[in-house]
């Protein structure tokens, strides 16, 4: 299958390892990955901070960039959530019914990585090897906007060498929330403190998730505390093999 990578601005700029791993993984599974270079940002930050008018151009760009592809994948539940649940809404609010229809069309072919692997490609075992003790944080948008359910866990359970440990209170938000982390920094930090406590209780070496944004938040806190737990994107674990 020919798959277009929607890299997300965050992974492109700050967490390219997650995006490279997505490419390597899909190519290893025999698929062709393309990277439409006109893409930038889906506009979620603008939409969620109250700037839908500014976001309109970004929505238009995103829809135009990915209109021609039969499948689009992103290493992020949150950005796919925005594409699926917000793009058409922004277009409609601006009175552009045609853009809304095209946005819905693109959204219907846009998948978060675990959705693409399990639902579209029908893969459970991606042939990965990752000999570490890992705990998984289900990010809010993958869980409650996309309903990925246990798909990431099913993929992780097949990874050879990986010891998966349950995260207590896993479904509680880490406190990131985009600009929430800045506008309500104290509350965000209080939520993060509980998330980090639960991560450390697991004794895991690695905390993984399907969103670089939440991992940036959890990882930023763990690093500040010198907690000795790393954050690694789900794509990087699934892309890891004994050879590389």
């Amino acid at each position: 299958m020919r798959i277009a990578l929607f890299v997300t601005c965050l992974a492109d700029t700050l967490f390219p390892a997650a995006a490279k791993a997505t490419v390597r993984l899909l190519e290893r599974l025999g698929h062709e990955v393309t990277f439409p270079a006109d893409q930038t940002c889906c506009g979620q930050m603008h939409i969620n901070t109250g700037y839908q008018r500014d976001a309109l151009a970004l929505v238009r760009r995103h829809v135009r960039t990915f209109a021609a592809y039969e499948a689009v994948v992103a290493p992020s539940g949150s950005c796919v959530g925005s594409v699926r649940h917000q793009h058409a809404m922004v277009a409609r609010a601006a009175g552009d019914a045609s853009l809304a229809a095209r946005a819905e069309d693109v959204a219907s072919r846009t998948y978060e990585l675990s959705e693409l692997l399990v639902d579209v490609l029908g893969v459970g075992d991606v042939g990965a090897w990752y000999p570490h003790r890992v705990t998984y944080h289900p990010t809010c948008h993958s869980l409650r906007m996309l309903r990925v359910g246990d798909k990431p866990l099913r993929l992780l359970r097949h990874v050879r060498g990986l010891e998966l440990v349950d995260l207590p209170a896993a479904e509680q938000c880490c406190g990131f929330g985009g600009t929430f982390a800045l506008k309500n920094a104290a509350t965000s930090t209080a939520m993060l403190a509980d998330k980090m406590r639960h991560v450390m209780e697991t004794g895991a070496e690695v905390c993984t998730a399907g969103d670089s944004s939440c991992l940036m938040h959890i990882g930023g806190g763990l690093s500040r505390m010198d907690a000795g737990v790393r954050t690694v994107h789900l794509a990087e674990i699934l892309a890891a093999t004994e050879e590389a």
Partner: protein
Amino acid sequence: MSRTFLGMPATAPRGVGNLRGDEPFPQAARKALGDDQLRRNLGHATTTIRRKSGSVVAELPDWQELRAAGSALKAATMARLPELLEQLEAKVTAAGGVVHWAADAHEANRIVTDLVRATGHDRVIKVKSMATQEIGLNEALEAAGIAPVETDLAELIVQLGHDKPSHILVPAIHRNRAEIREIFLRAMPGVDPALTDDPATLAAAARRYLRETFLSTKVAVSGANFAVAETGTLAVLESEGNGRMCLTLPDTLITVMGIEKVVPAWRDLEVFLQLLPRASTGERMNPYTSMWTGVTPGDGPQNFHLVLLDNGRTAVLADEVGRQALHCIRCSACLNVCPVYERTGGHAYGSVYPGPIGAVLSPQLTGVADNASLPYASSLCGACFDACPVKIDIPSILVHLRNQAPHPRSERMAMAAAAYTMDRPALYARAQHAAKLTRRVTHLPPPLNGWTASRDLPDPPPETFRDWWAAR
């Protein structure tokens, strides 16, 4: 047919009621976060209710269908609200009640105060009611020389403590039993000075005090959970039986009800009486469900007044996205699952409606500018939407209201610059490189110091993804 445009419906007026806080949410939240006792009380209480509600919700095989039915009933009701309210008025009047229409808090307070004055009494007993808290009825009655006595145990604790409620269902959730004992010893008339902080003993002390009051007070004020348009029947759901006392013992009953509480038909209660107790208190069936239709000669209050309150609700109804906030049945499930509420408590929201539903309801009732920080008091985690028994899409309303909120000038400029850059891939790539070349920083200037106060920034990678892809 000629039409007259009467303008947009009014929002709740300033200077009356309890819908606006003294300071923005982030500041109020910071204070609350510093109170360790409060956080322990809240964490304990919300975890307990969450667990209890979760287990009784899980045992119903048709919970999702019930939610869908509740949501559909509310949407259908809002679509013909004027007609249903007029039907309700006709039925209540035919059954011997008197219906009053209050455009806002001022009018409602004046109507109730005048009605109490007309009875010649100077004390009223109250059933727990959000609508009367919203309009500041107790303050208005006190100003008129009338003493309101809250009879719900938690509301009584709040009232005696000269405090404010911090939860829709459990208004004294921020208090533990040692604090409650102190409040009772200080403020409860005739309390036993040897009172302990044993919960049963505390409840018994309140019961002794309240029984006296029930038997000697001739006027009661209540809210309503539901009003059935086809029959004119009012319904109050409560757990302690104090409400039943207030609704049956006095000569005069005055009910203040938000106009969104009407339901079309008696059979609609079948859905809501299943949804509400499971979502709120975690009970399978509500303990005390009182229903009355007008006046029954020789039985119960012989004078019944229904005050229909707008106070900004029509303005909410005018907003296509925001209007679903009017579907709320005040169960408080969204508060109990909210990670923000659990850590800040209800007072930080500055309104009688705290938590996720408060963050979407209060700004709409007052106009967003008067509660501009509330739509941002959420990480948009979505737990509230999942928990809501009538499926109010709170995260979408939050995003919608953020788009209407006034924004700081510096933020507006930064957002416009970011959008401009991101709509130009070459410029965007140059901006990425600028970010990449920045050496690792540990402390950023405001407002970005909100991040670096507690979190490290990621190390900038040696190359962006698009660089790597281009070089492949």
